[in-house]
């Protein structure tokens, strides 16, 4: 009951005119950004951080802005993946599997409205989930000491690698690179300059905004350059824009199941929306009867990943707010944004700044409603945006990126650093290393080292503090599970190497 009171308060915060307007702008910007080929939620949120900062918005408002952009991007991303078969980011890959065939059959409008409905329901289920589980986890999280936190971070990283499907080792290496990057700069405990090699620009570490924009914007620009060379064309949308009752009935259980699955996948640190949509799609495919048309335009195959995707987007707020451990690349960016505002996410946030937490949760709900209200009538308009040619789009992205980076410190050193990071990011991407893992590692790196050193300071250097409480035992058990899972999967694949089952 207490929770409901807080939630009411949250709605009070979220429905102030300024915040409502912010949420509206956020969803709109998010949808457009998500729609543009190559730009995903990470870019959207990252590009807006400097702007939100520059506008001097109060922290809860800018957090609402970022969350609304996040949801908007997740939504906009599917428009390009349904119409163009270009998934803007990893979590929309599953959407393209059945969404694009639907668009080819001329049912683009139906596909888009189903994905809107699915996203809405998924978001709704997850918002309810966040309301119930976040406070529970927050009260429980107070029992977390430095040792427990350290184990949680190890879990988050192994979870990321273990869940990453066919390339666990690449994910692991990528997140370790991220952890390593976090070590650059002055060490706050001892005052030693690490890995700066005498450069003044690196002395307070790699700026978060520089890393994100370098990894995602610059590398994306380079990828888009390849794509311009091998052009891609848009599809026409025609016919009915709305799904009918029969179609809605056909997918209702799919949507409900996928929403719940998505939420719980979103809570797991490191798993995030990509995994959620894949798991939901696979399990629906398995449950379907033999005469399904998964893979060439089954409505369930579209609804399942869509719903799970947005449920996970909301669900990943839970570990971010309660533990300060981001559940996905995008929440990692948001976590960075919070620290810019001097807010430390974690259990204490619920006690010290409830207006931020509950305002955010309430605005997630409002953003969901806005998305569905705004998007269904605007589908026709949005499909036009896809016609923006790269020669206008890319210089714009590049210049805004440069401004965002320059705005942090007003030094050109950061611009060069961003380009270097971008080129390395592009190379990593070409070799199939997941960049979001680098980012997650970078975010976790600082906190991870601090907690490890704090724990060992408490125990005076005795390593056994890392496995001294039930929470740490549980954590290590989960870590072991996550390390063994891909090994088991690989072993099973080798045993049943059959041509039919990929």
């Amino acid at each position, binding site marked *: 009951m207490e929770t409901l009171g807080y939630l009411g308060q949250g709605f009070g915060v979220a429905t102030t005119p300024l915040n409502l307007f912010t949420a509206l702008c956020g969803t709109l910007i998010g949808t457009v950004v998500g729609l543009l080929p190559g730009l995903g939620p990470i870019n959207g949120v990252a590009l807006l951080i*400097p*702007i939100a900062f*520059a*506008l001097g918005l109060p922290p809860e408002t800018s957090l609402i802005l970022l969350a609304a952009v996040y949801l908007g991007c997740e939504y906009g991303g599917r428009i390009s993946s349904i119409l163009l078969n270009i998934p803007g980011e990893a979590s929309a890959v599953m959407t393209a599997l059945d969404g694009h065939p639907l668009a080819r059959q001329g049912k683009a409008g139906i596909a888009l409205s189903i994905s809107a409905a699915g996203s809405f329901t998924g978001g709704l289920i997850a918002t309810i989930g966040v309301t119930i589980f976040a406070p529970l986890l927050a009260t429980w999280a107070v029992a977390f000491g430095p040792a427990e936190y350290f184990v949680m971070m190890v879990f988050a990283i192994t979870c990321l690698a273990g869940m990453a499907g*066919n*390339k666990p*080792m*690449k994910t*692991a*290496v990528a997140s*370790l*690179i991220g952890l*390593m990057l976090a*070590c650059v700069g002055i*060490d706050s*405990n*001892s*005052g*030693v300059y*690490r*890995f700066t*090699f005498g450069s003044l620009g690196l002395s307070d570490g790699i700026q978060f905004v520089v890393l994100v924009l370098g990894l995602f914007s*610059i590398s994306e*620009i*380079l990828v888009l*350059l*390849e794509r*311009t*060379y*091998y052009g891609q064309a848009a599809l026409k949308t025609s016919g009915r824009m709305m799904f009918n009752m029969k179609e809605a009935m056909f997918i209702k259980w799919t949507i409900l199941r996928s929403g719940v699955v998505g939420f719980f996948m979103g809570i797991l640190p490191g798993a995030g929306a990509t995994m959620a949509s894949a798991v939901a799609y696979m399990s629906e495919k398995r449950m379907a009867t033999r005469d399904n048309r998964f893979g060439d335009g089954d409505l369930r195959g579209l609804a399942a990943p869509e719903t799970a995707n947005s449920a996970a987007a909301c669900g990943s707020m839970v570990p971010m707010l309660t533990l300060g451990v981001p559940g996905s690349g995008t929440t990692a960016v948001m976590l960075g944004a919070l620290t810019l505002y001097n807010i430390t996410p974690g259990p204490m946030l619920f006690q010290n700044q409830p207006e931020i937490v509950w305002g955010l949760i309430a605005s997630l709900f409002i953003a969901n409603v806005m998305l569905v209200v705004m998007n269904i009538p605007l589908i026709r308009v949005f499909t036009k945006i896809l016609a923006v*040619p*790269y*020669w*206008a789009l*890319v*210089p714009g992205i*590049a*210049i*805004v990126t*440069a*401004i965002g980076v*320059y*705005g942090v410190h*007003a030094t*050109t050193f950061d*611009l*060069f650093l*961003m*380009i270097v990071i971008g*080129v390395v990011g592009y*190379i990593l991407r*070409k*070799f*199939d290393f997941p960049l979001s893992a680098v980012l997650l590692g970078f975010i976790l790196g600082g906190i991870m*080292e601090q907690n490890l*050193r704090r724990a*060992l*300071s408490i125990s*005076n*250097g005795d390593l056994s503090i890392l496995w001294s409480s039930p929470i740490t035992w549980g954590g290590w058990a989960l870590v072991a599970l996550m390390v063994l899972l891909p090994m088991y999967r690989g072993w099973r694949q080798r045993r049943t190497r059959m041509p039919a089952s990929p």
Partner: protein
Amino acid sequence: MLYQRLFLVVLLVVYAVLAVATMGYEAAFSYEPVGPRAFPLLLLILLAAGTVYLIIRPGHMAEENADTPLTKHVLGKLVLCVLSLSLFAFFFEKLGFVVSSFLFAIAMCRLYNGGWVTSVITGAVMSVAFYVLFDRLLDVPLPLGVLSGLGS
């Protein structure tokens, strides 16, 4: 596959350099048992192990690479793109935001198959519009450079 292995070997060399650097990090006086050296060293060991594993068993490559093969032509364009980005960064403060982004936008526009006329128009519109938007409306200070006589 060969290129990936090559890249991984380069990474190993980088780790080695970093490891040498790490050995030198010594706290002048310390009130904690761990110090600044242990954590990066631990990471480097894990990284090296992971990288060696990948050299031995590279795994699958993304399908994305299959339909956009890196020909010489594309590679040349990529280099040009990075070059123009670097020049943009170099002249950002020297020429000021408006001039440098005008030139940069034209270069990028041309790279992404825009025509000359459209490129110049895009460059002009973008450089001025972004300057007004960020510097004047959003309070992100941008350098005026050679135009500093005009602005106030």
